[in-house]
């Protein structure tokens, strides 16, 4: 902007006294400087937008992570509760424990999504086993754990919806023109979605 201030009086001066060729040159230089400035401002705006969207994705993922940890803490208690009534169902317990370990080791959203569906199936079997034991189903401890688990599952689903929406926004932002020209070079990589279970409703494109 400073350059404009300096250049302005020069332009007016040369308009009055200098030959035409000089005016043309000055004008061209000013236009070039103006274009460069506009491009610079545009780049800064785009860059800041991508950073903001990437931060949103990170926040979205940490929201999911909080709920996944909470569920991983609940599972051993749940397994213990069922074991107290059905100690011989070793296969199911092992499956749940393995799936839980895989979940804890998953480092990317894609891996977490795969581990999540395995864990979901294993937990399904655990609850199917529990169905066969009326005393277990009636125990307050088990009912409390079951309700906590359902609540956590709902919250994981909610956090996943938000996370996937932020990933969509971020990926769209870095993969569209003109951001795609320099997004890769400045370290903006596309993020993975956190896959939904089969039971989830397909995403609805809401538009008017």
């Amino acid at each position, binding site marked *: 902007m400073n350059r404009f201030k300096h250049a302005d009086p020069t332009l007016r001066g040369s308009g009055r006294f200098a030959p035409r060729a000089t005016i043309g040159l000055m004008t061209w230089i000013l236009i070039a400087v103006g274009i460069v400035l506009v491009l610079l401002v545009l780049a800064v705006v785009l860059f800041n937008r991508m950073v903001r969207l990437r931060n*949103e994705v990170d926040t979205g993922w940490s929201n999911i992570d909080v709920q996944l940890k909470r569920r991983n803490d609940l599972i051993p208690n749940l397994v213990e509760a069922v074991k107290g009534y059905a100690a011989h169902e070793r296969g199911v317990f092992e499956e749940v424990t393995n799936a839980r370990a895989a979940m804890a080791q998953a480092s990317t959203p894609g891996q977490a999504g795969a581990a999540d569906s395995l864990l979901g199936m294993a937990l399904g079997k655990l609850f199917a086993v529990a169905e066969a034991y009326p005393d277990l189903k009636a125990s307050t401890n088990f009912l409390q754990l079951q309700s906590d688990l359902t*609540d956590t599952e709902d919250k994981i689903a909610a956090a996943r919806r*938000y996370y996937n*929406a932020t990933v969509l*926004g971020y990926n769209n932002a870095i993969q569209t023109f003109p951001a795609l020209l320099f997004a890769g070079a400045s370290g903006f990589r596309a993020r993975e979605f956190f896959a939904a279970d089969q039971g989830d409703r397909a995403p609805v494109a*809401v538009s*008017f």
Partner: protein
Amino acid sequence: MTLQQQIRSNRMRTAFVVVAFAVLIAVFAAASAVFMGRAGAIGLLAFGLAYGLFAWWNAGRMIGTLTHAHPLAKSDDPELYRLVENVSIAAGLPATPPIYLVDDPAPNAFAAGSRPSTVYVGVTTGLRKLMPPRELEAVLAHEIAHIRNRDVRLMTLAAVLVGVIAMISDFAFRMAFFSGRGSRDRNPVQLIAAVVALVLAPIAAMMLHMALSRRREFLADASAAAILNDPEAMALALRRLQLDTSEVAYADRATAHLFIESPTRSVKGPGAFLSGLFQTHPPLEDRIAALEEAGGFRLEALPA
């Protein structure tokens, strides 16, 4: 139009409305300067600003008092709190807003508060009883969407601005009638223009405010549908509200725009056009139709 475009165009409108309010206040200041001189007009504006800031700061509490809402503890209704928590997570809010309960049989809900620390969701006991969980969640998502889209903040700001303009107008009128000093030697055209401005400004402010509120209802419906990934639930909830014709007892012009559906009944017949200008909410049929179009489904027709 996608949701993102809708949000963007809504932001533009918001900016437009704020500028329009600024222009209104400037017109106002000029009009009152005719009666009171420059010093009087500046004093009036300063007083209006102080009043506005005070109202802004206490808006959440004032609205709570006006609507007779009281805070609900999590242990009193864990199921409702779970729904609000889930919706807040899905909407990406940093924290779950507290719930306030309004003891009223008419089903309705609102969100209020000027700052993130004071914002809350108000629910009537009628809504809690009437709505099945899926639709209750949609209503809560609508309110959370208002909070996330910064509607609540803007609506509170608009309400405060309308209040400030109404108050300044009232004040300027009194000054004009009780102190005739200086007004006799002024140009009569200027004087008439000033009076017209003083009369029209509060009405214009009110209409702007209402128009703002009506647009935002469509956006909040669409946002709620996106948050839950379930436009049908939102439409079903609106249908249920449509079928219920009871009114909220402690709701009036000052708080009507905050609710999910108009808490006072709309006028039918000869006065309908005039009341249409001042309606805070678009007709529920229009909102349901917008959701049906967006989600690609049809609710069953109402039995006539």
